[in-house]
């Protein structure tokens, strides 16, 4: 396929039309400002509306999105984001509702949030839900704070360890550390949790075991019920990282697998846009054990009225301003209602079918570690490329030249030169086949072409090493560099 990305030499916004520093002095008001009237100048350009529109439109043309390109990014579930969600979230009857309004004036949105909680409870198999969390990692952190509070109440403060598989997402150990736990990695055995290692590591110091199922290698942890039993026998909590829920929608659920708590990523499974890195949205679903610790306020229905309840004596309190990313929740609500029971089952069926289809075809060209039946994503190893002096990264960059996004690379770390491929259910067989062909073409390219990729994008290979060695993170840094070409940075560590 021939692909050429737009290549505007688009200036930085202040280079479009240099402006004198804004002079903030306003004598008339300085008296009201308690002596703090701004003296330090700040600079930002004064542009016309067309100049602004053209600038950002050109920038947008130098960016991949789902509507331009297939994104087979493992662990990210880059499915199509239905346009109707954009319309719904911009309805003035939600866009202009203030969180401090009395509940009598917001019964409409509260009824939606309430029904959303109920639907997510059914999907997760865990009956109590909070929509306050901002993202998956935030959900992990909040759940761990709740687990901490639970063990404090029980006088089991020696439970200071969080166990996680060596294939876990980086957010898991990072969240554990933020919540004050030591994380310990449980080794994998053929890509799945080693039950014997887990059993050895569980103890009365274990607070929780965090697990993604299917895991980050795309494999279903078939011994999940035994894992749940072992964790519970040791007195620990089993945590479900919902990043990969798309694969099992309507087939099983965190609750049915024995998990006590789960975060769901509405921006993955339920198709809210990723926004170039955010906003996402999380939902935290828990069983009875952890329910009292959920953040306030809790949404309650009394008769036909909905209210926010703050009288939750064991709640950990607030974790974010207001009630959650409501604009995103609304999109996800529409997505779930649209699919209904049968539609969500079709989602998991097709996602897993797409993944196995592509795995089977690509598996003829690069080694696939582990078992062959995968769920929504699969892992390949780019290690054989090394013999030709190229790396997985080069292959990934060449795929960009073909107009498809690269898979996730170098994760999971367990697999050498790994590529993690996730083709969501919204991709057609034709698109999978085109990706396959592009992938094989890239594999057969000469090492020179691969190392020089990409060539069809707005820029050539970006020097990430230089960016980190001399960080230039703002307009001011660029100017300083112009004045004095050697920037200084504190050493690592």
């Amino acid at each position, binding site marked *: 396929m021939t692909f050429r990305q737009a290549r505007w030499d688009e200036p930085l916004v202040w280079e479009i039309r240099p402006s004198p520093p804004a002079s903030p002095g306003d004598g008339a008001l300085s008296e009201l400002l308690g002596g703090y009237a701004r003296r*330090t100048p700040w600079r930002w350009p004064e542009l016309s509306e067309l100049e*602004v529109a053209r*600038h950002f439109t050109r920038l947008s043309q130098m960016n991949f999105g789902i509507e331009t390109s297939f994104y087979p990014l493992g662990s990210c579930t880059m499915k199509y984001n239905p346009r109707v969600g954009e319309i719904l979230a911009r309805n003035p009857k939600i866009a202009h509702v203030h969180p401090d309004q009395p509940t009598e004036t917001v019964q409409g949105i509260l009824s939606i949030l309430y029904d959303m909680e109920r639907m997510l409870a059914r999907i997760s198999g865990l009956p109590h839900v909070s929509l306050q969390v901002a993202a998956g990692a935030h959900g992990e952190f909040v759940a761990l704070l709740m687990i901490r509070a639970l063990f404090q109440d029980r006088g089991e403060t020696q439970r200071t360890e969080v166990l996680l598989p060596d294939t876990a997402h980086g957010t898991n150990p990072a969240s554990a550390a933020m919540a004050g736990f030591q994380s310990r990695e449980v080794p994998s055995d053929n890509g799945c949790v080693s039950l014997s290692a887990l059993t050895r590591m569980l103890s009365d110091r274990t607070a929780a075991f965090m697990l993604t199922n299917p895991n980050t290698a795309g494999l279903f942890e078939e011994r999940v*019920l035994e894992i749940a039993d072992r964790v519970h026998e040791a007195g620990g909590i089993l945590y479900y990282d919902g990043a990969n829920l798309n694969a099992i929608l309507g087939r099983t659920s965190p609750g049915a697998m024995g998990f006590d708590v789960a975060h769901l990523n509405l921006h993955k499974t339920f198709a809210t846009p990723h926004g170039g890195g955010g906003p996402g949205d999380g939902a935290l679903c828990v069983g009875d054990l952890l329910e009292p610790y959920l953040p306030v306020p809790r949404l309650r229905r009394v008769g036909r009225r909905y209210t926010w309840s703050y009288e939750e004596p064991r709640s950990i309190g607030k974790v974010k301003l207001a009630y959650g990313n409501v604009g995103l929740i609304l999109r996800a609500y529409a997505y779930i209602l649209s699919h209904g029971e049968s539609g969500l089952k079709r989602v998991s069926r097709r996602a897993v079918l797409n993944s196995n289809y592509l795995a089977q075809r690509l598996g003829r060209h690069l080694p696939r570690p582990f078992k062959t039946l995968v769920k929504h994503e699969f892992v390949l190893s780019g290690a054989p490329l090394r013999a030709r002096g190229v790396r997985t990264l080069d292959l990934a960059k060449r795929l960009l030249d073909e107009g498809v996004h690269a898979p996730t690379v170098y994760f999971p770390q367990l697999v050498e030169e790994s590529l993690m491929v996730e083709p969501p259910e919204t991709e057609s067989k034709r698109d999978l086949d085109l990706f396959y062909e592009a992938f094989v073409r890239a594999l057969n390219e000469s090492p020179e072409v691969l190392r020089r990729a990409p060539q069809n994008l707005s820029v050539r290979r970006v020097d990430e090493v230089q960016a980190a060695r001399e960080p230039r993170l703002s307009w001011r840094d660029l100017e300083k560099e112009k004045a004095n070409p050697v920037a200084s940075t504190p050493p690592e560590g």
Partner: protein
Amino acid sequence: MGRWIPGDDEEESALLAELGLSSADELFQDIPPRARIPRLGLGRPRTESEIVFHVESRLRKNRTDRDLLCFLGGPLRDRYVPALVDGILQRSEFYTSYTPYQAEASQGLLQALFEFQSLWVELTNMEVANSSLYDGGTAVGEAALMARRLRGGKRFLVPENLWWETRSILENYLRGHPVSVESIPVDPNSGEMDLDTAVRRSRDDCFGLLIEYPDSWGLLQRGLDGLKSRLGDVPLVVSTDPLALTLLEPPGSWGADIVVGEGQGLGMPVSYGGPLLGLIAGRRRDLRALPGRLVGASVDAEGRRAFTLTLQTREQHIRRSRATSNICTNQALMALAFTVYCTLLGPRELADLARQEVREAHRLAERLSSFPQLRAPRFALPYFNRFVLGLEGLTPPDFLGAMARHRILAGSRLEDPRRGDPSSAFPGILVAPPTTGATRAIERYVQATREVLSSGGKSP
């Protein structure tokens, strides 16, 4: 259901044939029978028009801050957002894209985020800014954790009048560590924070002091410009309002070590409280302690300017348990909205907007000060674009309820709703006039107040 899954049964059959399977159920045989679920208990699929009608009919039950006159003064603000801002956000290359880990495929977003970082550096007069956090509340939590990485210690000081949600979020962000959050007293009459006590208590094992600028009551505390020299190497964390910085001397000019804020009011509708935009900036020497994603300028293989995520070794996907934060998904699209909004208005119009809000707040306070039952403003210190309205002889719920019957959202409650009987709590509300149509709104507020007070706070 929309046509979101491509093809028909035949297409699925073709995929299955390649796998040598007769049914897709075989792909799920690795799920143990005991863990399988028969059904979810959800309804039938719906068409797009059914969904739109359903959601619209639910939402019709909401009253908005446009149906009612909005004087809510809490941390979020629903200002008008020019059409172009949303026009840019709706470019699907932006809103459907993923985190720009593949720099070459994402130059547009990376450049916009680089501009965003530059803008926050300009406004704060700090040295480095990241490309967003979840919101202004969690940004305070992240700032406290960062301060602790910088200095170590056991106590973090905050003003007694810190907005209750922010205080609770902060306590949660610190809960995993052997530290405490201590309140610095605020004078109940003047609203002045006791900086002498703050400085005294910042000795020894204190790892930071939070100052709000303006504070949760809308006030501009005295003595901030000399504060850093009194604190020495104790990190000074400042939580501020980006619009206010168009008029106020920026924290970077009076010694702040970390500056955070909430950006929602500039370019995003309030949307019942989310999505929001957390802002953070710091000193270059502390760069490696900063949480979240950073965009840096570099060059491509031909030596042309190019942008990329950088210093990722601070982040969870590389550093795991030793990362500076667990944050992964952030608020990139909201950072774009903030940048487009501020660029479209430009420095002059932004400052005009801020000035207008300051003037209207003062005008409302002045008008209300003639009512003997009200203290407008409740505190003596200078305030910015919102103020605490003191009520005497009637409770906030009574006053707010009576004003609501005049279709006026008269202010935000200050008290922590988790504590006991709210009617006996704090005797004031936080009031901010709307940015659009303030003149008429203020007249109606004053008129309604007159009627409410003359009937003793009961319904008209």
